[in-house]
C-alpha cells in the first residue's frame, strides 16, 4: 500500500497548493524578480519548444520594463497564455518574443477602494472568482469569469487576456460591459490612458490598442445599491465550450422594485459585443414583468448580426439571444431585489 499512500499525500499537497493559489491577494505573492533578460533556464523551455523555433521569453517585473520590451518589433504580451499557446500550436504566426505579464505585481492583484474595484489585467480568473466580496457585488461578472474553461484553465486565464484576445464569444466581456468597466492601458511613451471595455475589441482578433500598448488594470465602479448583474451563455455541452450566444444584463431597482437602470450586452452574435439600448429601454421603468421582458427579448434578437458557422446558425443565435436576455434579466432582478435594503 506504500505507493498508494504516497500518492494520496502527493494529491493532498497539490490540492493544498491549489487552495493557496486561490487565496484573494491584494498584491502579488513573493515572486522572484526575473528581470528583463531573456531566460535560458526553465521558464523559456516550454515556450521555445512550441514549434521548434527560437522564440524569446521575457518576464519583466515592472510595467516600465514591460513597456521597454514592447518597443521591440514583433513582441507580444501574454498573461495566462491559454489563448496564445493554442493559437501558436494551431499555426498562427509566431512572435519573435513573448512578454509574460504575470510577474508584475500590479497585474496580478485584486484591490477594492470605496469608489472602485481594480483588477490586475493578468490576475488568474480563479483568484477573482474566489474573492467572496467581489463575487457578491458582481455575481454576473464572477459567473462569466468562472465559466472560462476548466479549473486548470482558470488558474491561468485572465480578464485582460479574455478581452484582448478579442473573440466575439469571450465570456467575461459582456459582463464587464454591463458593469461599465474601463481598462487602464500602459502606452508606448510610458504613460497611461483609460478607455471603456467596449472600445477595446474592434473585430474578431483585433483591438484598439496601439503597438507597444497593453492593459494594466480593469476598473469597475462599486455597484450602486439594489443593483445586480447576471451572465448566461448557451453552449451545446455543459462546460469546456465556446459560447454560441452570451448575454450580460445588469439592473438597478428602486425601493418599490421598479427598474431604474438597465444594461444589456450580447456576445457571439456579432463581430464585437453588442449593447442593446432598445432592450434596456424596455426594462427601465418596468417591474421586469412579462410584457417588458418580451419586448426586451425581441429587441435583443433584433440587435443580433450573427453568422452561420459550425457552432450555430443565424436563426438559432438570434432566437436564443432573446431567450437568454429574458432569463438573465430575471436573475439580475431577483439578485437586485435580494440586495434591497442593504447597500451593496
Amino acid at each position, binding site marked *: 500500500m506504500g505507493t498508494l499512500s504516497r500518492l494520496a499525500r502527493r494529491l493532498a499537497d497539490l490540492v493544498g497548493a491549489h487552495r493557496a493559489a486561490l487565496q484573494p491577494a491584494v498584491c502579488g505573492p513573493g515572486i522572484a524578480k526575473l528581470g528583463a533578460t531573456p531566460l535560458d533556464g526553465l521558464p523559456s523551455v516550454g515556450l521555445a519548444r512550441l514549434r521548434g523555433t527560437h522564440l524569446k521569453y521575457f518576464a519583466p517585473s515592472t510595467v516600465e520594463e514591460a513597456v521597454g520590451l514592447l518597443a521591440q518589433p514583433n513582441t507580444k504580451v501574454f498573461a495566462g497564455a491559454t489563448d496564445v499557446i493554442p493559437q501558436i500550436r494551431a499555426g498562427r504566426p509566431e512572435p519573435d518574443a513573448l512578454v509574460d505579464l504575470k510577474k508584475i505585481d500590479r497585474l496580478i492583484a485584486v484591490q477594492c477602494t470605496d469608489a472602485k474595484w481594480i483588477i490586475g489585467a493578468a490576475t488568474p480568473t480563479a483568484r477573482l472568482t474566489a474573492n467572496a466580496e467581489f463575487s457578491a457585488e458582481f455575481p454576473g461578472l464572477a459567473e462569466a469569469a468562472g465559466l472560462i474553461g476548466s479549473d486548470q484553465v482558470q488558474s491561468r486565464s485572465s480578464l485582460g487576456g479574455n478581452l484582448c484576445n478579442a473573440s466575439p464569444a469571450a465570456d467575461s466581456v459582456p459582463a464587464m460591459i454591463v458593469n461599465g468597466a474601463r481598462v487602464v492601458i500602459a502606452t508606448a511613451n510610458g504613460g497611461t490612458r483609460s478607455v471603456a471595455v467596449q472600445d477595446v475589441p474592434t473585430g474578431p482578433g483585433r483591438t484598439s490598442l496601439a503597438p507597444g500598448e497593453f492593459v494594466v488594470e480593469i476598473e469597475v465602479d462599486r455597484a450602486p445599491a439594489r443593483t445586480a448583474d447576471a451572465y448566461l451563455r448557451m453552449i451545446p455541452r*455543459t462546460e*469546456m465550450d465556446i459560447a454560441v450566444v452570451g448575454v450580460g444584463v445588469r439592473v438597478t431597482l428602486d425601493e418599490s422594485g421598479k427598474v431604474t437602470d438597465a444594461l444589456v450586452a450580447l456576445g457571439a452574435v456579432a463581430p464585437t459585443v453588442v449593447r442593446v439600448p432598445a432592450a434596456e429601454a424596455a426594462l427601465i421603468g418596468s417591474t421586469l414583468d412579462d410584457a417588458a421582458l418580451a419586448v426586451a427579448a425581441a429587441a435583443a434578437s433584433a440587435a443580433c448580426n450573427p453568422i452561420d458557422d459550425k457552432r450555430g446558425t443565424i436563426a438559432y443565435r438570434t432566437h436564443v439571444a432573446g431567450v437568454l436576455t429574458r432569463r438573465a434579466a430575471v436573475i439580475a432582478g431577483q439578485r437586485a431585489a435580494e440586495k434591497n435594503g442593504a447597500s451593496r
Partner: protein
Amino acid sequence: MTIAEDPATTAPGYKWVGTRMIRPDGFEKVTGRARFGADLKLNGMLYGHVLRSPHAHANIVSIDTSEAEKMAGVRAVITRADFPAPSGPAGDQDLQRNAMAREKVLYEGHVVAAVAAQTRGQAKAAAEAIKVVYEVLPHVMTVDEAMAPSAALLHPNLMTKGIDPAPTGPSNVASRALYQGGDLDLGFAESDVVVEGTFTTKPVHHGYIEPHAAVADTTPNGRTTLWCSSQGHFTMRAMSAKVLGWEPSRLKVIPAEIGGGFGGKTTIYLEPLAVRLSQKAGRPVKMVMSRDEVFRATGPASGTKIVAKMGFKNDGTMVAAELWMAYEAGAFAGSPAGAGSMTALAPYTVANFLIEGFDVVVNKPKVAAYRAPGAPMSSFAVESLIDEAATKIGMDPIEIRLKNAVTEGCQATYGPKFPRIGFVETLEAIKNHPNYQIPLGPNQGRGVASGFWFNAGLNSSATVHVNEDGNVIVVTGSPDIGGSRASMALMAAEEFGIDAARIQPVVGDTESVGYNDQTGGSRTTLATGAAVIEACRKILADLRGRAAKQWDVPLDKVEWVDGQAQHVDGTQPPLSLEDLAKGWNRTGGPLTASAALNARGVGSAFSTQVVDLEIDPDTGHVTVLRYLTAQDAGRAIHPSYVEGQLQGGVVQGLGWALNEEYIFDRNGKMENASFLDYRIPVASDMPMIDTIVVEVPNPGHPYGVRGVGEVGIVPPLAAVANAVEHAVGRRLRDLPLSPVRILDAILNKDC
C-alpha cells in the same frame, strides 16, 4: 492487500471469477509510469513529420523534395517513390495507397510525404518545404453525391460487387450486401401499421485520448523493431510489412500501453512511415500525431443514409421490414455496411424482410472500426421505427420488443440459429427496474432501444509459466484496453486455485508469444481467455502427473483442489503449487505450457437501454437525467470492468446521438478538427450510467463468457431520438440531435 473487495459478487461455484481485483496495470497507469506510444526515447532518435494533402481529391502531378532534403537537421525524406507499387488483393492495395498516396490524394489529410529530422521543428519545416503540384479534381462528400449518376469517381476500376448482373462500368459503390427472407409485398399487405422514414448519421470519431504514435529502429542488417500503441501488434506487423514489401518476420513489434482504441487502432498509419524513415536515415525515428492529424487522417465511423420501412400487426407482431442503407467508406472500400445489414434486424423475428447495404467511397478519411462497427446506424433506423409503431399501436416499447424478441433456436435474419441468449432477460430487467416507473415532468421524455452485436472469435495464443516460487506468469499477445490483464489473472487464478495476486499477466511482443489477432470484436476475454484457460489446464495436468509420480500412484488418484495436488483418498499430504515448483528439478524440469486456438463458441451480445432526458424548449438544450443499461455478459469475470464497458459504450453513443459530427467546408476540408468544436461529451454532461449486468452463460465458453465491449454503443442513438420524440412531439431522423436541430424542430412544429 485485499484483492476481492466484494466477495459477495463472486459467481456461484467460483472463487475468483466475478471478484473485483485491483487491475494489475492500475498502479502504473495512475502514477504516470505506464509507457504509452509516445513515451519512448532512444539514443540518436529522430522525429518524423508527415506532409498531408490539403485537397479532398487531386492528382499528384509532381513532388519535389530537393529543397527539403538540404534543410538543417533533415536525415530522410520519403514519398511514394520509397514504397513498392501496390500489389495483391484490392484490400492490400488500398492499405498501401492509404499509407502513402500514389497517383492521387483522396481526402484532406492523405499522406503525401514524410520527413525525419533531428528536431520536430526541423521535420515540420522541411515537410512544408516539399513542393507538391496538384491537379485538383471534383470531390464527393456524401453517399448521395457519390452515388449520383454523374459523380466524380475516386477509383477508375471500382466495380460494384454483389449485384446481379455485374455492372459494366466503375462507380463509387464498392459492394452491396443483401439479406432477405419471406415475401416483402405480402408482409406489408398483412401489416396493420406501416412506419417509414429516411435516417442520416454523420461520421463520428472514437476520440481516444492517446493520439497514434510509433517509434521504429532499423538495424543495418534490415531487422526492425517497432514500438507502437495499437489494438494488435501482430496485425500491425502484418500490415506494415505489406506496405514495406517485407516478410512480416523482419519486423518485431513491441506493444506500448494503449490509451484507448475502440476499433480505431486496428490499422496502420504512422508505422510503415516510421520504419522506412528509420531505414533510410539509419537512426531510430519517432512519429506522433497531433489531435488535428488524428481527426483529419485516421478513421471515423461511417456517415450513413438509411431508408427504412416496417410493418406491424395490431398486436405488435413485426411482419415486414425493408432497409436500404448506404454507408460512407471514406476514400477506400470497406465500410461496415455488411455488419450493419446483418445486425439491423438481428434482435427480432420477422417473417418478411429485405436488407440492402451499400459500401460507398467518398473523399473523406477511410473509416475505421468503431465499437460494434456498422450496428449503431442501422439500429438507429430500426429502433426508431419500432418506437413509432409502438406509439401508433398504443403499446409499451418494451412489450413490443418482447413480442418480437429472438430466443434460443430462432434463426437470425443473417442466417444462423441462436444458441442460448439473454436478450429477453435484458428487456425484463429494464421493465422491472424502478427507473422505468419514475414519472416524468414537462419537457421530459423517456426512450427505449435495444441492440445486438456479434462476438468475434479469431486466433489467440497464450503461454503460462510457473515460477520457481510457485507464482504464475500469463503471457498473451492481446493489448489490454479494457482491463483484460485483470480478467486473464482472475481466470488463471480460478484454474490454479491460487490468489489472483500471485498471477502476473503480461502482454508479450510478437516474438515472445504465439500469434494473436487484435483486441477487438469483443473477443479478448472470450478467446484469449479461452487460450489462457487451456494453457493453465495443460500445466494442471502436468502438475497432477508429477504428484502422481512423486506418490507413485496412478494419475486418477490425484486431483487438483484449492491450489494443491491431493490424493483422492487423503493418504498423502497434499503438494502445493509452491512445493511442486520447488521440486521441478526432480520431476521433469520447468513448468510451462502454451495454447493456441481459433476460438469457437462465440456468444451473441444483447443490450436494452432506457434514457430519460429533459429538453429546454427555448434553447433546444438536452439534459440527460438518468440512464439505465442492461446487457447480457454471459459471465462477468471482473464485474467492474464489465460495468465500465457498459457505461463507456453508452457515453460514446450519447455523444454520437447529441453533438458529435465531422463538419466539412465546401472544399471538403474538415472544419472542426479539435476537441473544442468536435464535441465529445464532457463529464458534467453525463448522469451516472446505471448498469444491470445480466448473466446468461454462453454455452460455448468454459466460464460462460460473452464479449461485452461493443454492443453498449448500439442502442443510445435510437434511445435518445425516441426520448426526444416523446419530449417534444417531433420525430427527428437526422443525427446529431444538437440544440440547433432540436430548437428548429420545436419552433417549426407545424411544418
